[in-house]
């Protein structure tokens, strides 16, 4: 019931806003902020009262929707999505707060924003395949409209069409994969726990898995800007109004990753096993190539877009490692990156609002005029390069530890890509924007001074720091659920050689296993075996 409230509140508010006259601007804004605030509070409550380590799903609710096809409204949380729902609700609240920059047709904007927020939370909460997809599409369409109407820049129309066609294509490919999965599993039910159980007992034939898994990987990959299907992301984010970019880059994009973890891995284990090396090398494209491209950007918005694409590489790497540490790290990065992306795009929006440009060669010295925004930007940049203390560090280091066993070369490259390239472009951007001489024309730029202007940034930074210092809050919840549902096909995953300090205590305490499954033994890249690289840390 609490989940239904969390995702229902934004929808309810959207319906309520339809009946508010458009000149009641304060009412429009307060309803949107209040609804997202309440759902964020409920999400915090849900997170706090979550029974860590309890098997199965909690706060479940289920009733039939279309009984003939086995479609039901089924929501619930386990360790994997409880953090994501928390992150989504907080980002939605921050995005609603940051929407003050919208001055034109506010009513429509808030309605769309609320539908998007509700759809996102619904997608992460749903335990029914159909509902999962349905909510995602529901959230996706407002994104397109918001970019088209309230977007900025000259390429707005082109960006709208590109992101619409590209993401719809991805979603539809994933839909074909999901329908095929449903039919292969007997065509009786769309219920995710039920399907997982069914497919655990009667795994699909290799041929079926071999068709469905690539469909899901491609479809979800497009939605998450997996290299080489990333070109929509920087363009789309640089044209989007900042609340939309916050919600999409922060939360909605994680849908594809969540789909891979929740659906593709447990239901199609053999194909997953076979495709993971491909994924590991593709994510190099994200980490190294897109990182490299980000270094070359002149516009801070494009830089943030590419950096967000680059960070997705960590999640893919964590998933590709297919062991408890790696996938736990992947979920940690998903949550951390959600806060970070929302923070970055929120700050970008603020800067753009004040200066009207994000060309880095035109900016400079803004730290003097914008102490609060400047500090937040520096902290976001540090979190982006993976400095300890921020949640991103906890996630990224866990991913790298998890991936080391399977993909040594990739892990070494990932360290370089992420830590060196990331640091270079982030710090350069900070220098270009915040330090140096202050151009004359920016002398009147104003800092975020009121409570409401500061709230979204403070909240997101607090979340990043909170999970950075106490990653166990998340990891303790994620790991048992992953072990129970997702990684069940790989029971004895290797934990050897990982320094215990970086692990959630449950795994650190577990006996170190050196014997790996034979299937896994051969998989690390031979090049890495031949030239053992030093431990990246």
């Amino acid at each position, binding site marked *: 019931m609490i989940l239904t409230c969390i995702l229902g509140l934004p929808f309810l508010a959207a319906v309520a806003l339809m009946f508010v006259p458009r000149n009641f601007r304060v009412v429009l804004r307060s309803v949107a902020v209040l609804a997202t605030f309440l759902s964020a509070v409920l999400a915090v409550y849900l997170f706090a009262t979550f029974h860590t380590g309890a098997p199965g799903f909690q706060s479940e609710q289920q009733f039939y929707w279309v009984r003939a096809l086995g479609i039901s409204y089924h929501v619930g949380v386990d360790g994997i999505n409880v953090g994501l729902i928390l992150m989504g609700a907080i980002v939605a609240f921050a995005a609603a707060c940051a929407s003050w920059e919208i001055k034109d047709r506010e009513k429509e904007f808030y309605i769309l924003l609320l539908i998007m927020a509700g759809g996102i939370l619904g997608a992460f909460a749903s335990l029914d395949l159909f509902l999962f997809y349905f909510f995602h*599409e529901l959230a996706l369409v407002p994104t397109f409209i918001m970019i088209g109407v309230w977007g900025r820049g000259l390429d707005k129309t082109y960006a709208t069409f590109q992101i*619409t066609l590209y993401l719809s294509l991805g979603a539809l490919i994933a839909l074909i994969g999901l329908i095929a999965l449903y*039919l292969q599993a007997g065509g009786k039910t769309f219920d995710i726990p039920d399907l997982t159980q069914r497919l655990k007992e009667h795994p699909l034939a290799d*041929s079926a898995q071999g*068709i469905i898994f690539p469909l899901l990987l491609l479809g979800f990959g497009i939605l998450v800007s997996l290299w080489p299907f990333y070109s929509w992301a920087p363009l789309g984010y640089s044209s989007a109004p900042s609340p939309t970019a916050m919600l999409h880059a922060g939360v909605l994009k994680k849908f594809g990753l969540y789909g891979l973890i929740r659906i593709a891995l447990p239901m199609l284990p053999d194909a997953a096993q*076979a*495709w993971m090396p*491909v994924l590991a090398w593709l994510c190099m494209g994200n980490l190294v190539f897109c990182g490299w491209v980000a270094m070359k950007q002149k516009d801070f918005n494009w830089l943030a877009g590419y950096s967000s694409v680059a960070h997705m590489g960590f999640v893919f790497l964590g998933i590709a490692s297919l062991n408890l540490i790696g996938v736990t790290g992947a979920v940690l990065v998903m949550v951390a990156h959600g806060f970070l992306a929302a923070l970055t795009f929120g700050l970008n929006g603020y800067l753009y609002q004040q200066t009207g440009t994000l060309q880095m060669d035109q900016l400079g010295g803004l730290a003097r005029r914008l102490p609060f925004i400047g500090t937040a930007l520096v902290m976001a940049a540090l979190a982006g390069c993976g400095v300890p203390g921020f949640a991103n560090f906890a996630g990224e280091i866990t991913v790298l530890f998890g991936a080391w066993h399977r993909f040594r070369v990739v892990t070494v490259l990932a360290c370089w890509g992420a830590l060196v390239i990331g640091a270079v472009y982030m710090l350069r951007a900070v220098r270009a924007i915040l330090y140096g001489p202050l151009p004359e024309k920016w002398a009147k730029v104003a800092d975020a001074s009121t409570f409401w202007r500061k709230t979204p940034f403070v909240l997101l930074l607090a979340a990043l720091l909170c999970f950075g210092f106490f990653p166990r809050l998340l990891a303790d919840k994620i790991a048992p659920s992953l072990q129970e549902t997702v990684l069940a096909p790989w029971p004895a995953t290797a934990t050897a050689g990982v320094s215990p300090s970086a692990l959630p205590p449950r795994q650190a305490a577990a006996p170190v296993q050196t014997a790996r499954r034979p299937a896994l033994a051969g998989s690390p890249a031979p090049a890495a075996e031949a030239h053992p690289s030093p431990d990246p840390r």
Partner: protein
Amino acid sequence: MNLELLSHEWLVFGLGLAVLLADLWLPATARRGLGYAAALGLGAILLYSLLAVKVEPGTTRYAFDRMFVLDGLALFFKRFFLVAGVLVLLMAAEYADSFPTGLGEFYALVLFALTGMLVASSVNDFALLFVSLELITVTFYILASFQRTRLISLEAGVKYLILGALSTAFTMFGIALVYGISHKLNFGDLAAVAAQYSGNRLFLCGVALVTVGLGFKITAFPFQIWAPDVYQGAPSPATAFLAVGSKAAGFVLVLRVLFTAVPAVTAHWANLLMVISGVTILYGNLCAIPQRNIKRLLGYSSIAHAGYMLLGISALAVSLGNGAQPSTAGASAVLYYLSGYLFTVLGAFTVICLTLRHVESEDIAALAGLNRRSPLLAATLALAMVSLAGIPPLAGFFGKFLLLKSILTEAPGHPGCYWLAFVALAGVVISLYFYFGVVSAMYWSRETPGLPAISASRPIRLAIGACAAGMLLLGVCPAPVVGFAAQAVQTLAPAAASSAAASNSVSQVKGPGGMWPEKTPKKFQGISNIFE
């Protein structure tokens, strides 16, 4: 003889005659009221149909020596046509100012075409098929060219007449061939012997020619050529009725002919149907991209939607060809899709009819600023476009979902289905481009200032509200209609099953395409080796 089975037809036909007679005595000013009265009458008939006419699931009742059948499928389509008729009559009443003369005849013709559609949904004999098809087509020749003062309307009528007559000739010739070979006209009799003629070239040719005639009605490639011109030229209410009623009549006849009359032949035609479906989808969507005229755009879009619905027909044909108990999921998906399509297209045409009735050009650009002129109309048209594009939570999404599901169900036995599903998907992605183009024209393009607000009478507001509610309700609670559709197609299944079994036992043939053996796809090796 069982006349009560024809109650719908008698009532609607009687209503048509009454309208025609009333037109003689009514003053010209009351003509619009006549349209409302006719719509009200149809509403009453619909109510009668919902409350008084019952068909036990899975049973069939016959009239006229089994020429006429009343089963779940017939009843589903009869109610469908009645709903469409009510909405079209309301639209016609609103459009009344644009007709210089003969408004009463317009209403009556709509009702006569409706009678033809009602008969079409119960056809169980080639003779009756021809009669119903002619009743629909001939009335539409007149409806399409009803605005005699507009050249483009006349052009539409002439084009429809010539191509329609051609397709009728094909149908007639096909029926003659089928009868000449098999000496049967009744679908039931034909199904019993179809298997033994499924190798006979002339018989196959006859069935193919009948299919050509039906393909013309549903605007399937390559018989779609008339659609854009006629849609553009005909008066909006006639276009809307053509897009919904005539197409649905075509689909019910396709279902009847292919799956109750000659299932043994259809079982071998799965590949043909799949190719037609794929090409129709691509043709409709690709040609819609450069269109500037909104009605022409909807003409191409209606071709594309015929292609989507053929997905369901192909799925049924493939499942028939696989020989096991065929699944009727494809047919019920078509029925569901048509229901969603009814509200979507009628909603779109009602808005277009209201917005553009005083504008000579029906350019998409003329929609600019509709949001400010009438938020209700803009929202309805936007909903319709989004539903046509297939985006949740609207009817179009669930319909496409069901169609894709039905075709993917058959994919393990017939890998071509995967390709067809991808073609459909490509079509959906292409279609987003032009549907969103219409939405963007309404909401965020530069508008000519000073255009007046658009007034809409209360009945037409009701009709628009009904269309919007239909789109939303079908999308959000699809269960009742899905259940109704599944029940309606039940009668197709046993017939199909028995004759498919017959076809398997009698002739292990060799038609074009042949039976598809279950291929075992090559063992999936995984790509991992490349990297290890």
